[in-house]
């Protein structure tokens, strides 16, 4: 991702804001992702300089944590739980149905950029699975009918 001048300025501003805090890297990366939609590789040197870290250290952290993206996600993000409690309630069948209904493989973004389907390991709603987080909104007791409603929302 090539940064615009405004984006570069924004990254430098955020990095400066967090630079004084202890253990600032994770909060800063969260803030960057909230602003830019991802943590682009081009932001790494700016962050490293501001926090007095090596680029390798920053890159290591960005790639270690599942949450940080190096490229932007689709317009909508569906995070589907794959953990045991949801599996006990038919999660595997819903996972297959979701991939088919949304037209995208688990862990991928659809070619038109409209939706990203991601695995998540537990949302803490374990008595009412299968569960998903649709653009941050929790949805329980997923059925094919509910998947249809989610798919319709995404196409709209």
């Amino acid at each position, binding site marked *: 991702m090539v940064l615009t001048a405004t984006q570069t300025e924004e990254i430098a501003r955020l990095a400066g804001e967090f630079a004084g805090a*202890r*253990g*600032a*890297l*994770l*909060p800063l*990366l*969260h803030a960057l992702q909230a602003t830019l939609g991802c943590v682009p590789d081009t932001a790494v040197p700016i962050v490293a300089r501001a*926090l007095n870290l090596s680029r390798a*250290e920053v890159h*290591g*952290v960005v790639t*270690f*944590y*599942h*949450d*940080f993206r190096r490229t932007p996600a689709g317009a909508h993000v569906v995070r589907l739980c794959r*953990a*045991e*409690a*949801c*599996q*006990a*309630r038919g999660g595997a069948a819903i996972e297959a149905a979701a991939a088919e209904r949304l037209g995208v493989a688990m862990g991928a973004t659809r070619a038109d950029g409209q939706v990203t389907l991601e695995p*998540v*390991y*537990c*949302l*803490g*709603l*374990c*008595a*009412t*699975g299968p*569960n998903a*987080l649709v653009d*941050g909104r*929790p*949805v*329980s*007791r997923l059925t094919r009918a509910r998947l249809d409603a989610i798919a319709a929302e995404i196409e709209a």
Partner: protein
Amino acid sequence: MSRVFVSRDMASVALGSNEVAAALAQAGAEVIRTGSRGLFRIEPLVEVETQQGRVGYGPVAPDEVEQVLDGTHPNQLGDVGALPFFARQQRFTFGRVGMIDPLSLDDYRASGGWAGLEAARLMTPEAVVEQVTASGLRGRGGAGFPTGIKWRTALDATAGEKFVVCNADEGDSGTFADRMLMEGDPFSLIEGMAIAGHAIGAGCGYIYIRSEYPFAIQTMREAVQRSAAIVAPFRLEVRVGAGAYVCGEETALLDSLEGKRGQVRAKPPLPAIAGLFGKPTVINNVLTLAAAPFILAHGPKRYAEVGFGRSRGTMPVQLAGNVKNGGLFEVGFGITLGELVDDIGGGAESGRPVRAVQLGGPLGAYFPPSMFHLPLDYETFAAANGLVGHAGIVVFDDTVDMLAMARFAMEFCAVESCGKCTPCRIGSVRGVEILDRIRAGGRAGDAVEALPQMRNARAAQRGVADETALLRDLCETLKYGSLCALGGFTPYPVLSALEHFPEDFGLETAHVAA
């Protein structure tokens, strides 16, 4: 105008409580948002304040609110607290959850809040630590380490700066007690952390919450802000994880808080001696810290008189997976697994027979119904090659494929391994491969084994029994060779599945050759 109570817990919202609350407000009711009572079969739940106390209705759909307000809704439950699911509980830690507005300081104080902190502040730090020790409280995150000893170690350590860290990285599938407490009664956690701060002489605390819990993050941040003046000079900050399961391991969590990759540290040194930023740190689970206000307010004896063996006090048990009455059930240790799954949980929601339960999250063992007589107790489950862990119970019916569950345990370990130690990083991948070969019924000798220079290699076909022996060997390496519980405990689900459900692995007898 009716006063009604509707949960704002993430699980209730996922079942539609926001829509119900909006419809009630539209109909002219005064809606108070609470935490969840903890029984999800009756959610979305609406409780209406009447002369005789609160009357519950649930589940309720948004277009049925008029019937709730005029008292004609068919799902009337009466006094929710009198339902068998709630009447059998001992809510020491979850007493307020579902009852009060979680962010109301008035509600919190009116229901006995801050009494523990006020009592602690009148004592010396040594006396507070003694009270916690006398209560017999053990770490509720999973390891069950005596909390008093941990606090004592940090108190005795001399340093210019100490920390209290709350581990709210509740990543285990089948667990949600930490989340419910943070969303339903955040001030009790803050009070517990302030007590710990006083006890060890720490001026600052961090609450590390996993990013998968957006509601808890929002509620805790707001609660920290609102209560800042009460806990001062103790200061608190909420930090958010980034989707790494291993950060629930205490030393990985500390590295993550420091802004590094969440990799496990070798112990010693213990975090209580050299923890966050190298300073003495008490790191405890949400439920451990939230138990402290009760102990200080009511005295350690009141807490310790409940329990079983060396497991004292109550455990907020989470009934999850394919279970009819799923939810949060806080009870003294000693209740049997069968009582929890069959009597309270009501068996599988699918109506089919229960075949297995997993106790203690992804690293916990699977147990068949023949072991349902075991009482909930750290030592009992350790002796049965399992663990209580964070007391999440995931119920599976008879359609479960235990070989697939064993494979998932290895796959999960491979996905979430921090990569620091070899048994976990590589062993988990090898484990998936072995389980795939067991699924395939063994394998033929491969090309390398057939090379003339491989004189000692066996060229013959390997059967399921050979692969199983290899799996056991691998599990032993993981168990004894890993740095932390992720690699060290992954053998529990794998070997328990093999031990108790050999037929799913293509082995005939219940007695598998060791």
